[in-house]
């Protein structure tokens, strides 16, 4: 096996998995086994790629499939950022699959085959995004991801689910088609290429007053990054089953968004170019506003998943903010946030799902006393929440650390304040879950029968969040390795 | 209230608590204060600098200061009550201030 075939495999494996799942639709146990085996094999494959990137190689496969416009081909190329994203997405797919099995069965969801197929396709699309060597390839997989996740969001097929899914689809499609595609075409027009390149491809080719405009087209075009006005799809998509929410918030979708944002910042504009022109200054402010606005909104949500959704909007803007600070340090901090947030948020969503499975409770105010019945779930939740807040001994801390460092190096005090305020707010919206769960007496005489004696959720709903919570802790101590890997972004030439 | 407390120690303490005990304490306190002022006039002041050395020469300064200041403290604090005092459930329900009273009320009804 060589690097190039591993690249192809990374995209083909989940697709193959989807076919297998479809073939085994009448044998649920085998079907789930197929998902798990595929995810493990995929992860091994991605690890192999990561190792080769770490050794300084740049796996690439060019001119795969000709695009409608002459001279444009699909091309794959793996650099450290993409390698990290691929590793996270494929690694979390394993955990999420385990969880999906527990959740979907415990909830007796229908259409499980469709669910697993779409999930696999979504992972394939995420791999495509991670591995894409130019904007066009990225765009194609970006749209595939949107379409593949749509049936997942609408999974319950209730009117509410459909409405939410429609908002999801409309916002993501319209922003990408109207703005992102336009921005890509514009970039192609100016630079004659849309391939990602070290140091960017726009430097010296675009007038400095137009650079912010182009950046705006990208920033709002990448709807998955959930910047302020286009963030609405995220709360709307919360109607999906919890494993899907985890997929959206942690594994693939929003991560694909901010990953694209980082790619555009680092390899299209180039950090130096952004720094010289100050084209991203406004974006940093907007991201800062996004962080605070979404945090305040999260504070007002009583529905746990809605609270988590707004928290995601806020946390994603960390990445955009870090990138828009336009220093290598900032960009690396943004990349780090992709990893740290992924593990933190997936833990939170899986815990929220476990709580739902065990007690059918969805509101924060209804969690009183539940932790005594479900101590493992709530402990995992606390760990995930603390990681998002950025408390020490958890991975999320280093993100805060590096972003404040980057802001301080630029003497941009305002962003330090934003980070502090955001941490305070995230504490304020997460702590109630822990405090209520562990310490308040359970509500008495609530009419429904199954609320009276909730027990810990099934093993497959509890084990995965525990694993990801432990990873959050490990990431704090092993950040060195991850950081050194990410530093290759600014060392190698892709 | 003529019950005999269970503990020996309680019975000892009861002597202090009785009207006679209180009166005795008053007298002891007065005598002690007078004695202290008297002793204060004769002791050497070697551990005093600056202001400490100056006030040490004023007979009974520490006593007067202690008396006046603590009386002032109470009077000022009592006056502050008019401005600062609110009912126990002022911050309710997000406080523990009135929880005991609340519980009492609930159990009596």
């Amino acid at each position, binding site marked *: 096996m060589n690097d190039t075939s591993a690249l192809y495999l990374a995209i083909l494996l989940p697709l193959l998995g989807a076919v297998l799942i479809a073939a085994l639709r009448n044998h649920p146990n085998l079907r789930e086994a197929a998902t798990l085996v595929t995810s493990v094999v995929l992860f091994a494959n991605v690890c192999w790629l990561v190792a080769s990137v770490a050794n300084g190689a740049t796996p690439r496969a060019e001119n795969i499939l000709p695009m*409608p*416009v002459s001279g444009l081909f699909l091309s794959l190329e793996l650099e450290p950022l993409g390698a990290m994203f691929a590793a996270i997405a494929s690694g979390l797919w394993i955990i999420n699959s385990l969880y999906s099995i527990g959740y979907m069965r415990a909830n007796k969801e229908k259409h499980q085959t469709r669910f697993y197929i779409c999930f696999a396709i979504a992972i394939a699309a995420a791999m495509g995004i991670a591995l894409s060597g130019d904007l066009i390839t990225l765009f194609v997989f970006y749209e595939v991801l949107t379409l593949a996740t749509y049936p997942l969001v*609408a999974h319950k097929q209730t009117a509410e689910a*459909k409405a939410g899914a*429609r908002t999801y*689809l409309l916002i993501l*499609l319209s922003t990408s088609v109207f703005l992102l595609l336009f921005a890509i075409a514009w970039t192609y027009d100016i630079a004659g290429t849309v391939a990602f390149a070290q140091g960017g491809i726009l430097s010296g080719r675009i007038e400095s007053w137009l650079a912010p405009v182009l950046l705006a087209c990208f920033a709002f075009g990448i709807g998955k990054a959930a910047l302020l006005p286009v963030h609405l799809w995220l709360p709307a998509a919360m109607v999906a089953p919890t494993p899907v929410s985890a997929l959206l918030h942690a594994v693939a979708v929003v991560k694909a968004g901010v990953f694209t944002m980082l790619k555009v910042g680092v390899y299209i504009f180039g950090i130096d170019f952004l720094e010289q022109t100050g084209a991203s200054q406004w974006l940093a402010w907007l991201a800062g506003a996004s962080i605070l606005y979404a945090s305040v909104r999260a504070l007002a949500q009583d529905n746990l998943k809605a609270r988590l959704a707004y928290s995601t909007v806020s946390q994603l803007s960390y990445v955009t903010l870090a990138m828009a600070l336009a220093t290598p340090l900032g960009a690396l901090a943004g990349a780090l946030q992709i990893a740290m947030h992924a593990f933190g948020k997936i833990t939170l969503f899986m815990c929220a799902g476990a709580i739902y499975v065990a007690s059918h409770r969805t509101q924060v105010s209804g969690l009183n006393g539940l932790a005594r019945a479900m101590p493992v779930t709530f402990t995992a939740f606390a760990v995930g929440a603390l990681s998002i807040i950025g*408390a*020490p001994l958890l991975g999320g801390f*280093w993100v*805060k650390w590096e972003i*404040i*460092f980057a802001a*301080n190096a630029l003497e941009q005090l305002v962003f330090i304040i934003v980070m*502090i305020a955001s*941490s*305070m707010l995230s504490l304020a919206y997460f*702590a*109630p879950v822990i405090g209520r769960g*562990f*310490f308040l007496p359970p509500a008495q005489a609530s009419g429904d029968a199954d609320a009276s004696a909730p027990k810990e959720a099934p093993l497959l709903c509890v084990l995965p969040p525990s694993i990801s919570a432990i990873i959050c802790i490990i990431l704090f101590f092993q950040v060195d390795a991850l950081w050194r890997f990410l530093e290759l972004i600014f060392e190698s030439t892709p | 209230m003529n019950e005999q*407390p269970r*503990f020996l120690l*309680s019975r*000892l*303490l009861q002597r202090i*608590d009785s009207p006679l005990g209180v009166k005795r304490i*008053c007298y002891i*306190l007065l005598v*002690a*204060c007078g004695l202290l002022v008297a002793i*204060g006039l004769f002791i050497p*002041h070697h*551990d*005093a600098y600056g*202001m400490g050395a100056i006030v040490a020469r004023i007979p*009974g300064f*520490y006593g007067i*200061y*202690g*008396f*006046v*200041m*603590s009386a002032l*403290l*109470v009077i000022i*604090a*009592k006056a502050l*009550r008019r401005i*600062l*005092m*609110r*009912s126990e459930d*002022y*911050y309710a329900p997000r*406080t*523990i*201030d009135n*929880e005991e*009273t609340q519980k009492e009320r609930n159990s009596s009804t």
Partner: protein
Amino acid sequence: MSIPPFLFYLAGALVLPLVPKGAMRSLFLSLVPVLALTQFVVLPFGEYASAELFGYTLILLRLDALAYAFSLIFSIAAFLAALFAWHIRDTTQQIATLIYSGVAIGAVQAGDLITLFCFWEATAFASVFLVWARRTDGAYFTGMRYLIFQMLSGLLLLAGIILHINATGSNLFVQFPDINFAAVLILLAFGIKCAFPLLHDWLQDAYPASTPTGTVVLSVFTTKLAVYALARGFPGLEALVYIGALMALFPIFYAVIENDLRRVLAFSLNNQLGFMVVGVGIGTPLALNGTVTHAFCHVLYKALLFMSMGAVLLRAGTTKGSELGGLYKSMPYTTVFCVIGAASISAFPLFSGFISKSLILSAADKQGYTLVWFALLFASAGVFHYCGIKIPYFAFFARDSGIRCREAPWNMLLAMGLTALLCVGIGVFPQPLYNILPYGVSYVPYTADHVVFQLQLLLFSALAFMVLMSKGIYPAGLRSVNLSSDIVYRKWLPRVLLWTWGSIEQFVVSITAPLRRESRQIFRNIGVVIGNEHGSGVMLLWVGVLLVFLLALTYLAR
């Protein structure tokens, strides 16, 4: 190779759930501090256990005289608190106590700022569980407020540390040479935990809200950790002298009119911290020694007082001055221990407060802080008044409330007895404590003038109490709360925010409502066109078909 003591606590917290509940577990809980103590008590001073993380060198165990004194008293207090809580069967509380004690000791032994920060935050998170452990709605909300304040302190510290590292390139925790922006941030962070004036409300808010045993633990660590950090980072910073004097003064007024006796103790905690902060601000060897000694003694007698009030809360069900009285009949031993604690905090000769407070007063006078000296003298008289007399008087004597309850359980009495013994022991034999002070200063507390003047101050102030009491001037215990600066964030800010949010919302709605109606109409029309009627799946199909069509078209056009 020596193991940092905090690891014992953390390991203990991990193992704890496996230890069977009951006496076994209680024994385990009190053994952990002892084990951890053996790790450093005879260790020569120096730096141990460093680690590399993310390009920084972390020093997990730095032992010097300052750290040693604080680690020692923290360990002793952790042991006593464990004994005091022997009868507790609440696993969450036990784990939180272990972690909290451990990270507090870790924080004073941290040699660098990053490690300090990690422990600093950890104390915040671990301690809030002790507030929440009361398990009432009120305690839950109080805990939230407490947590937010502690977190704010942590974040200010974080920002300050990053600025400091960026400017100096060093993450060692030593004295901050100049007061730049970074240092101000760090000072503010310390100030919140140390309950500086206007940053202090969390303390009086949260400490009375905890459980009978939890408050004892809370009273030991957080604020003394802050005092340690100030003594390490900002010795001799003159502003601290005045901040400290203010801290020593204003709480005494509140304490006189406060009804909840545990809150009275919280105010006196604040007042005692003021003495220590003044000592740090003066910064001479004598003053710093005074701060360390006072912190040492203070931990013990404050814990003793909180223990006695905890026992009262446990047995009588309340610590409100208005509800209590005459408890000596039911709880005579607790009464005596409380009186010993009260005598210690009032700095009676032969009690521990006497041999520590006078160091700070002497230092203030020696350096010519005359006004501050008078203020501290006033505060000393005051503390006797509202704490030394008021607490035992209102709880155990005064009018008989008719409460007849059981005496505190044996473990509480034992813990109080040991603590009281230490208070008296230190008061009578101060030399062993003086020997571990950071600076070699020969100080003799028991001189004739010292003893006489202190007794004058105290007894005349007792006389004033008696006079005021007999004249009926002394404010009686009333069911009430007293406003403080926390009204800003407990009443006004929420109101202002709600109002602002409401008006903004109204404004936005009034503008967007027509727009939204219009757009909904448009979407509906589009929906009809692409098949919304038949469900979203059809719509998706349409999108797919459109895309394929476009693709085909462009291929043809090529």
